[in-house]
């Protein structure tokens, strides 16, 4: 037997570079993964539980006889299934996630650790209040931070997400109008066209009619046009500030004054509060209600689409209508007030809007948000806001060489571009976004806000280093050049390196397949 003295080829040039399909369909680290229903054992389980005695049956004659149809996987199979799936996801821990308006910033693991302390994670919402004093203290402390940072006198902690907070705020406005006896006449809510879709959806859910506030050519509320629309039939305006074009509403006080003068309320969508946290207090600007997305500004993880948390700060005028439950502190003891009887029944003018959720809000998110706040302190929160704004302006400054900013001037925490730079290239915003995927980036928010053609909204957040931003900008500049060099095919084909090519969303909606069904039943 002779030794193989050829050795292992080490030069990349020795490797064939043509793409080949693999037998498995896998591509090295990218493993194709079937559904659990296709691989799992319908009689299997991955937990060891003792055998029930099998005698007790006090189930009222309703003991389940039918099959449920759920496979069980052993622990190693389960782990492998989810780890393989995870590797088909992009995440902020992997690289920049510049989704404008979504605020994908670093999620500190300390916050995860603290939320898992048994004193928080293993605590029942209906345990006696004497056994949960530390939890009530935490809610009270977080409420203090939120009130202090916003300069508002009250906060409702229970809304479960931003849209839920909007609902809370708009319901408080509705209740206040009811108390004033004006609910029948004040039926209009004004919101800019650039607003998040949740704003009009929320206003309608509250029974209001929504009308657009026109924007001026600088991307801000057109004050004169707003004033024309105001009247004694206006319940409220809903304005995001900084707005969804990434701009601070420089007429904010005049806007607030005008709506107040007309007898309406100012709902501020706080989705972009991260740009001004510990710099500017919305309470100083005339805001009556504003939700705060703890999962944006205060970095509780987005988790692939929730859970969020949307505490809502309220002005003196709206505070009496706050939902139950809420925490009050009395002589060092914390009380959870769970039932505020409709005060109207007791002959008072004010009435709580009622209950928004079964329990007290997103406690797990509260712990994480307070850990974030204590870690940053007021100096760190302010620095984070400044860095977020600086990073966005840096991206704006660097990209405007090849891309077209939607508006002149500086931005706040996000930079908005339109698709003029793609004119006549055959490349559209969506193609540009998909090409970013091949470059290793999550695309920016696209086609939002609606007021800008082919919008690309880039929010880098404070979590990106200068080096990371430079690389990101270089990549986008090169893509912009390629688009203009006539390489439309490159963009239309993208992504080619992702776990999947472009997916057919039209077919998915036309004939919805929303669950797995056994092959025999298909």
């Amino acid at each position, binding site marked *: 037997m002779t030794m193989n003295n050829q050795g292992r080829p080490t030069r990349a040039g020795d490797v064939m570079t043509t793409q080949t399909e693999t037998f498995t369909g896998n591509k090295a680290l990218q493993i194709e993964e079937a559904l659990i229903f296709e691989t799992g054992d319908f009689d299997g389980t991955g937990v060891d*539980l003792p055998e029930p005695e099998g005698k007790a049956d006090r189930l009222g004659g309703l003991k389940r006889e039918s099959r449920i149809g759920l496979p069980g996987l052993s622990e190693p199979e389960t782990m492998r299934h989810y780890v393989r799936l995870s590797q088909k996801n992009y995440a902020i821990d992997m690289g920049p996630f510049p989704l404008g308006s979504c605020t994908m910033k670093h999620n500190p693991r300390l916050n995860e650790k603290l939320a898992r302390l048994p004193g928080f994670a293993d605590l029942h919402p209906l345990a006696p209040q*004497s056994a949960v004093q530390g939890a009530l203290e935490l809610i009270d402390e977080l409420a203090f931070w939120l009130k202090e940072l916003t300069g508002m006198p009250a906060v409702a902690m229970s809304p*479960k997400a931003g849209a839920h907070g909007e609902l809370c705020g708009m319901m408080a406005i509705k209740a206040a109008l009811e108390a004033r006896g004006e609910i029948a006449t004040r039926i209009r809510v004004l919101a800019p066209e650039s607003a998040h879709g949740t704003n009009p959806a929320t206003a309608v859910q509250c029974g209001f009619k929504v009308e657009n506030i026109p924007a001026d050519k600088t991307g801000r509320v057109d004050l004169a046009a707003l004033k024309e629309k105001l009247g004694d039939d206006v319940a409220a305006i809903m304005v995001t500030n900084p707005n969804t074009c990434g701009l601070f509403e420089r007429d904010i006080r005049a806007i607030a004054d005008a709506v107040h003068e007309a007898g309406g309320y100012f709902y501020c969508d706080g989705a972009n509060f991260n740009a001004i946290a510990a710099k500017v207090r919305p309470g100083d600007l005339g805001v009556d209600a504003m939700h705060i997305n703890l999962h944006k500004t205060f970095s509780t*993880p987005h988790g692939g689409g929730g859970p969020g948390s949307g505490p809502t700060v309220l002005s003196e005028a709206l505070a009496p209508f706050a939902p139950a439950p809420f925490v009050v502190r009395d002589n060092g003891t914390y009380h959870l007030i769970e039932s505020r009887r409709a005060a109207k029944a007791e002959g008072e003018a004010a009435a709580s809007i009622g209950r928004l959720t079964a329990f007290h809000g997103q406690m*797990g998110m509260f712990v994480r948000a307070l850990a974030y706040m204590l870690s940053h302190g007021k100096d760190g929160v302010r620095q984070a806001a400044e860095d977020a704004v600086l990073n966005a302006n840096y991206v704006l400054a660097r990209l405007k060489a090849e891309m077209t900013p939607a508006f002149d001037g500086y931005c706040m925490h996000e930079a908005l571009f339109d698709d003029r730079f793609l004119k006549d290239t055959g490349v559209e915003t969506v193609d540009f976004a998909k090409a970013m995927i091949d470059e290793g980036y999550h695309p920016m928010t696209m086609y939002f806000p609606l007021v800008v053609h082919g919008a690309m909204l880039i929010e880098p957040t404070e979590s990106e280093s200068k080096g990371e931003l430079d690389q990101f900008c270089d990549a986008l500049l090169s893509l912009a050049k390629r688009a203009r060099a006539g390489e439309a095919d490159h963009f239309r084909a993208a992504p080619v390196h992702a776990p999947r090519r472009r997916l057919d969303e039209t077919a998915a909606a036309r004939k919805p397949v929303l669950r797995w069904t056994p092959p025999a039943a298909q």
Partner: protein
Amino acid sequence: MRYLPLNDADRAAMMNIVGVKAIDDLFADVPADALNAKFDLPDHKSEMEVERALGAMAAKNRAAGSGPFFVGCGAYKHHIPATVDHVIQRSEFLTAYTPYQPEIAQGTLQYLFEFQTQVAALTGMEVANASMYDGSTACGEAALMARRVARRDKVIFSGGLHPHYAAVTRTQLDLVGAKMLEAPIDVDGTEDLAAAIDDDTACVIVQTPDVFGNVRDLTALADAAHENGALLVAVVTEAISLGALNSPGEMGADIVVGEGQSIGNGLNFGGPYVGLFATRQKYVRQMPGRLCGETTDAEGKRGFVLTLSTREQHIRRDKATSNICTNSGLCALAFTAHMTLLGEAGLRRLAMLNHEAACRAADALGAVPDVEVINKSYFNEFTLRLPKNAEDVVEQLSKEGVLAGVPGGRLWPHDPATHNLLIVAATECVSDADIEAFAAKLREAV
């Protein structure tokens, strides 16, 4: 500050390229007197200091696992396999956004598709959405959806519905000015709601097991609703019960909503939880919330996308079926991962272990003099009638290390008739020693 990568040299270089001299030049649109307000808040802290501060707060709470524990009523203490927490802490799941770019979010989308399939199977329905905030908000959304489907006004609430669910639903329905009929509190599950259904009724909302733990057969009520053109909305606050009981779908429910916390999610003092929402295929376009659907990519490979978004606020704006945006993605992952480990076999076994624990607890507690078990049927939760105010008893037992259950006064503060009631849950986590300790202390307390 450990979370911020920029240093002062970076900032100076970047400001130079941006073309400003000071950071506040970028805040020039802010009214000058509002900029850089003063805040009565502390400065930043080290990781160790933060851990100490929050650790001190956590230490003031009595965790469920620290002693005999029998509290339920919509949130339940169950064992969660260690694998589940590892899975949800994977960076790629934890720190991802809503899957708006499906080519790089197939991980999230596939588990949502699997979640929807599991929820539909468990509830006995045809389709389920990708989750709601929690069971109570899902209940409110179900009432709104039933009104859209039936094009009718009135919603009937069972007297066995968790009062917080009723309150949340009332809040939602008040907004649209809906008519509501709330049945009187129904402690023993014997109410007859069929007679209340009229031609203006959109739906009847009924919970099983109900808030007092009674297992309810929904079949007759579903028939009565359908005969009158109304929908039956079934509420399940203890998802594990679906492993032991006939599903609401089998009993004729049109919409099933529930709290999924029991599977994969900790108590977390009330949230985040995961709302389950399932219905019939024919109503799918009236559903609220996110939906994940199967499709193919440009090469013909199977993939998943968010679909039917023409129902949703980001597309339909003021004409959306709901204003919901964020849901409970990560809690849905915890649910589906735990469910995948359990499988049907494990879930059935777990459910019966719960039932047996409750039977043992009911026998022991019902044997205490002057204490009566009200229920004829139950799954893992039942109601005791005590000879005195249950809130006082709970407080006293709490001091002695036993968290005894939910007193009626906590849920119905304005209804004294409930104040001697104690709702007791016993799950697989309850040991015989726990039950003995509870019974002994209860004997002393009453």
